[in-house]
């Protein structure tokens, strides 16, 4: 049973560029949530996708956008990268719109220079 997978593992981008991160949920899960984890901090909720729609959103600017595909996989896009966007980006999957048990992937380490 495959867990949550994310790609790429690491990424280095230049300020102002755009980045796309990818996530495949755990088998049987249909909901994907994205989190940003700065060094030494707890994860911060970005948004959640269910049935290919953004269902909930945290306090992140519109530069952060996402998409969910019919196979439940998801992408996180960040435009106009800032140095402060450097962080570990985590994807978590769960079952159903009210699924509380969220399982996290290993994350994508994004460095903006």
């Amino acid at each position, binding site marked *: 049973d495959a867990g*949550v997978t994310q790609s790429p593992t690491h990424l280095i981008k230049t300020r102002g560029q755009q980045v796309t991160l990818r996530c495949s949920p755990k088998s049987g899960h249909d909901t994907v*949530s994205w*989190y940003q984890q700065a060094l*030494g*901090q*707890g*994860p*911060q*909720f970005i948004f*959640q996708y269910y049935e290919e729609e953004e*269902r*909930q959103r*945290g306090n992140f600017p519109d530069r952060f956008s996402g998409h969910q595909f019919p196979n439940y996989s998801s992408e996180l896009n960040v435009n106009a990268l800032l140095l402060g966007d450097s962080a570990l980006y*985590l994807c*978590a999957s*769960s079952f159903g*719109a*009210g*699924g*509380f*048990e*969220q*399982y*996290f*992937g*290993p*994350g994508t380490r994004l460095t903006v220079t």
Partner: protein
Amino acid sequence: QQQVKQSPQSLIVQKGGISIINCAYENTAFDYFPWYQQFPGKGPALLIAIRPDVSEKKEGRFTISFNKSAKQFSLHIMDSQPGDSATYFCAANGEDDKIIFGKGTRLHILP
């Protein structure tokens, strides 16, 4: 409010001892309280979780104690082992499904 306050920030415990991490919340709409364990370079792993209708939940060496009236909950790790050395996050969910995380506790178990 959407805060979850966690303490201590770091903790050193002797092998075989009891590790205790505390959390407090303010939003009474929270109704699910998970604990996550995170090793360096890895994503958080769901360790144990509790609903507010019970005061304690035990899974192996890990126990959550929950005090609904005080809006506090804690994680106890019995017989702590060096392999338990990691960062632990308490968290809370409400009906909006956003997980709100504490800032984490870096636990180090001395061999």
